[in-house]
């Protein structure tokens, strides 16, 4: 391996280590950093909706697991606060 490649690999190694350390600090631990990269980042999207966009519709399942309704059914005449989340 010539000198150029040694430096290149070394610099990328240091950058990778620095990035992983920073991510570990942000996430709480190296395990959490791995979890964030492996499971969270692929599902996180900024989205294209903007203030003023038409609110998209989607079919939602009621708590009984059988009934269905649409988000836009709930948007007539009054504003609707939509809070997305999960249990964990």
């Amino acid at each position, binding site marked *: 391996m010539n000198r150029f490649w040694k430096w290149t690999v070394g610099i990328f190694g240091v950058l990778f280590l620095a990035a992983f350390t920073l991510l570990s600090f942000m996430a709480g631990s190296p395990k959490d950093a791995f979890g964030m990269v492996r499971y969270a980042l692929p599902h996180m*999207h900024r989205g294209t909706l903007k*203030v003023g966009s038409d609110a998209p519709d989607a079919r939602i399942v009621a708590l009984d697991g059988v009934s269905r309704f649409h988000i836009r059914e709930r948007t007539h005449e009054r504003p609707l*606060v939509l809070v997305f*989340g999960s249990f964990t």
Partner: protein
Amino acid sequence: MTVYVREAHPTDEWQMKSNVKDDVCYAQPKTLEQRVAIANDFTKRFKFPLPFGIDDMSNAANDAYAAWPERIYIIDESGHIAYRGGMGPFNYKPEEAREWLAARYGAVKHEAPKSPADAAPASATRAAAPTPAPTAAVK
């Protein structure tokens, strides 16, 4: 209205210590029945009083609103996005949504939980917090 989307920290993916501490340990649902069961666990455990729905297994609502892991939107009377919250968890700011509602519809005084036992775990509290709105004006 609260919409349950795919789990953020299931046991078979990125489980966090706080999930164990709060006894909120679920695998990522693979079927709608499993999602419905977890959603019902949540609403029953916290006696969740607000309108509640579940994204189906196609994740249509999640995809349409880029909702995961948590996010707030306010849709106005004409069906347009009036408020678009940031991506959770770092930019999930219920207080910002509350301020937006107060500025537009007037402030409403909310009662604090009667005891710590009434309070939901962090993620659930975050999800529930912004929903109270001027009841006469907002669903």
